[in-house]
């Protein structure tokens, strides 16, 4: 029934539209001009519209969005390297917005100012080498320090000293996360995917001594200001460990191990004060991985050393949980 009604509405609209166009044509036939050629009046109105819409309205809406939706962006980074990323982002955005708010108004203004009329002619201006050089060299000169700056930040992030970092493994699978702590020896036991069975969800090789003090959790606790090295693995397809508040992201690829080192600088408690009681540092999956890609989460809790030690003491090592006693 709804289908027939919709069909009828479409059909009637089409007929009305066609008739309107027909009428329009007949009127123009009387006036002896092609209604589809552009005249000076069109240029005046469209030129004005470009200025008003692509200029004023668009740029105004951009400012509005910054004001009312800009508040939703992530809070400042809660990690050492994250702060350097935030600064780089601010500098880059500053540059981008500078260029944006110069070129867009020029576009809108030129389009309005030079709207056509049949009484004048355009200016025959073919090329100007000085101008070309200027707007090739200036972008190059502006981009060079930006590139160097960016490469510097990247280099520091990827070559961070991890010799004192606490090693924690993040294990991704359809559709959830597990974390494996490396224990007191700070060494993760080796793994083999063929060992995944029953309680041994992560395929840890229990013949490797390093695995004895490992333990698995569904929630990650970190000590504030202590460096940590996350090592990622995947059980099935490509996932991606995304910790937006720490500015951490790294793909989890089956068949290989990836890693990302960082140091958290704020406790969960501090963030709750800042952002509200409902805040938590969260791990999300950020690479399409199947039906429940949208629902892979794990909480990260950053706390003081005492709180961390209390939590640790309640964890059970793999030696106890996986091997027969």
């Amino acid at each position: 029934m709804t289908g027939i009604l919709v069909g009828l509405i479409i059909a009637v609209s089409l007929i009305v539209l066609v008739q309107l166009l027909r009428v329009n044509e007949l009127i123009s036939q009387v006036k002896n001009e092609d209604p589809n050629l552009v005249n000076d009046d069109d240029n005046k109105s469209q030129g004005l519209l470009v200025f008003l819409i692509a200029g004023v309205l668009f740029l105004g809406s951009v400012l509005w969005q910054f004001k009312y939706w800009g508040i939703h962006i992530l809070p400042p980074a809660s990690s050492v390297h994250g702060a350097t990323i935030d600064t780089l982002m601010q500098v880059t955005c500053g540059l981008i917005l500078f260029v944006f708010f110069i070129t867009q108004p020029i576009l809108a203004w030129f389009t309005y100012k030079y709207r056509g009329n049949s009484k004048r002619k355009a200016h025959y201006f073919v090329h100007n080498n000085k101008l070309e050089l200027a707007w090739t060299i200036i972008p190059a000169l502006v981009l060079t320090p930006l590139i160097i700056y960016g490469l510097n930040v990247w280099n520091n992030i990827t070559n961070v000293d991890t010799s004192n970092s606490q090693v924690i493994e993040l294990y991704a699978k359809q559709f959830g996360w597990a974390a494996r702590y490396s224990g007191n020896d700070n060494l993760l036991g080796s793994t083999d995917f063929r060992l995944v069975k029953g309680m041994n969800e992560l395929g840890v090789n229990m013949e490797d001594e390093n695995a004895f003090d490992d333990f698995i959790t569904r929630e990650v606790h970190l000590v504030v200001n202590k460096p940590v090295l996350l090592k990622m693995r995947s059980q099935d397809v490509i996932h991606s460990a995304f910790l937006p508040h720490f500015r951490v992201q790294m793909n989890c690829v089956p068949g290989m191990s990836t890693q990302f080192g960082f140091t958290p600088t704020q406790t969960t408690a501090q963030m709750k004060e800042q952002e509200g009681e409902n805040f938590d540092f969260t791990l999300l999956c950020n690479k399409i991985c199947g039906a429940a890609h949208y629902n892979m989460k794990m909480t990260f809790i950053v706390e003081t050393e005492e709180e961390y030690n209390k939590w640790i003491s309640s964890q059970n090592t793999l030696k106890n949980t996986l091997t027969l006693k």
Partner: protein
Amino acid sequence: MSEHHKETFITKYIFSLDHKMIAKQFLITGMFMGVVGMTLSLLFRLQLSNPGESFAVLEFFLGEKWAPGGVLDPNMYLALVTMHGTILVFWVLTAGLTGTFANFLIPLQIGARDMASGFMNMLSYWFFFAATVVLLSSLYVETGPASAGWTIYPPLSALPEAVPGSGLGQDLWLIAMTLFVVSSLLGGLNYIVTILNLRTKGMTMMRLPLTIWALLIVAILGVLSFPVLLSCALLLIFDRSFGTSFYLSDIIIGGEALHNTGGSPILFEHLFWFLGHPEVYIILLPALGIVSEVMSVNCRKPIFGYKAMVGALLVIALLSFVVWGHHMFLTGMDPFLGSVFTFTTLLIAIPSAVKVFNYLATLWRGNIRFTPAMLFAIGFVSTFITGGLTGLILGDSALDINVHDTYFVTGHFHIVMGVSAIYGMMAGVYHWFPKMYGRMMNKKLGYFHFWVTFISAYGVFFPMHFLGLAGLPRRYYTNSSFPMFDELTNINEVITFFAIIGGLVQLLFIFNFVYSIFKGTVANENPWKSNTLEWTTPVERIHGNWPGELPTVERWAYDYSKPEFDEDFVLQTVPLKENEINH
């Protein structure tokens, strides 16, 4: 001499060897697929802005299996997103854009009777048609169409147990893409050889309209990069169907450990993006070429800096081969490699900036005529600036860490491809419609179409940058799983609202297009008073383009408002006056 051969309905409309007819075949198929792709996006946008809510229209389109009770199934969500991307990137913006305008414009603008091989050209379209049929059929298979994203990373795309669409749906996708690549290669070969060999007397390379330069460079990009996609796909086919381990290793799926060891999904990514990145320039460059043409004609001024524009196209094309790693910053690849790709990616900003400044300089002191095509060209410049600038953030590896695979990326690539390149395509359709069909498209409907589209497009894609900076990942079925995203709901609603409006107004464009083919006001030979050769062909359109001798070219394509002439345009065939400065 034009070729006289007896034309039947079949040889004229179906298995045509006439490049103009083949162009229209590409255009119509591209437009049809555009409607399909756009509809898919509206379906999943409904779910995104109103998660878990029931929509009768979802059940109407997708049936009870994939939208039980009107609520979208999560697997089908991924399928819709995948097919939307595939259809729009390849079917609409590659075949629909290049297939239409390369076929239509190349012989006409260089002064040739037809392409070097009309037969290969005809094959190019029919391979494309076959690819279309196969891809559309994949929408109806029981386990659903391909669902691993248009980028089909394995293992997700290799294992039906990981997502149902990776079964038959993915097989059909791979077959369709193979046919598609063959079609593209057949076309590209023709475009290159025709431009290099069949230019008419006097048409030197530096007298070519910029559109032809862009199409030539795009064709070269295509013949060099599409084959690598084929090699990438071949290895995937073997992993999927013959148990090899090119991309697969150490996998447990559906509770079973697979036998594969030694494979690397990252190898797939390298091969895929080696095509994938040039692909987006294959999409962008024709639009750049069309906009150069449309702007110049409608500003009644030469395009500013013709040589620099050609140079910029060449540099962009060359650089496009060495930036692919910026899609892979976070795959665990060597950080030094990441630095190299950041460097090359940010370099591309320079020729792109040159082009934008040259467009602005073309507008300066012009005498602008606002045809609907010109409005779309101006819209192109606006969105190319916006989208290009956010590329500076994404190309910087350190900044990419927090925006990779978020809506920031989605906003960026939609603004440059889904808006800029589409605007280029629209500008082309409105501009060359009189030459394609001998009639004018309705101007008022054109204006309405442009303004509603312009406002809607920015309304959909600009807010996405904020979603991305808030940490919202892409390809999420719903954002309601994480409390941190609850405050973003109203932004998502605004986006869906504009998406629906923007989508619906395209129907008006299609109506205008179809209506004008039959009932549009009759055009004369050169309604835009343009210089280029296609406007010297008769309105009746014949196979062989010119009824008598081929035209001879005496000047470049951009003598608009030249002081030595009273008229504000000079056809390329007009000989130089005595003492006239030649460009």
